[in-house]
């Protein structure tokens, strides 16, 4: 899993039926210091993240299995919202 920051949204009416009611977020990949890398991806959002939220996400085949009841055709899926990031300054 990696960290990302939600920076926007994508709307699509015509989409694969398995993606119906799945929110699509524009997400920038960030490093461990939450600094943006400039890489922006479109992610399936399972948790209802909003603009500016720090999230963690899965890629590849794992992104398919984020929902308990269905497989979705996604290669980038947001699976959690970061409440706190505790990094010891050593």
């Amino acid at each position, binding site marked *: 899993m990696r960290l990302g920051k939600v920076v*926007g*949204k*994508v709307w699509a009416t015509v*989409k*694969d039926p398995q993606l119906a009611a799945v929110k699509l977020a524009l997400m920038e990949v960030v490093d461990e210091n939450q600094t943006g890398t400039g890489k922006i991806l479109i992610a399936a959002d399972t948790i209802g993240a909003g603009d500016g939220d720090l999230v963690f996400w899965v890629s590849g*085949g794992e992104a398919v299995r984020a929902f308990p009841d269905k497989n979705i*055709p*996604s290669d980038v899926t947001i699976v959690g919202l970061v409440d706190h990031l505790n990094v010891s300054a050593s």
Partner: protein
Amino acid sequence: MELGRVEGTIVSTAKVDRLHGQKLMLINLVNPDIKPTSNYVVAVDSVGAGKGEIVLVVRGSSARQTQSMQNVPTDASIIAIVDSVELKGKILYNKAKG
């Protein structure tokens, strides 16, 4: 997933059996502001996208997860036609406005 613009269709007669009946599209991957990049991908279309439309492309094994794509040997699929893209509160693309 990545954003792309449908640049054209691919016609192929000699192809593996499991690709028969699938529409193949040439996609130019674009940035969120719909500016073109130098990356192209050939994708199977499951949603009926047309030339010039902005679409969502999914890659890897996830590209085979749609109902119509089970056992199709593809690593890139078009899974949605994009209506609009919003980045940091600004609408960067709106299909209705072109």
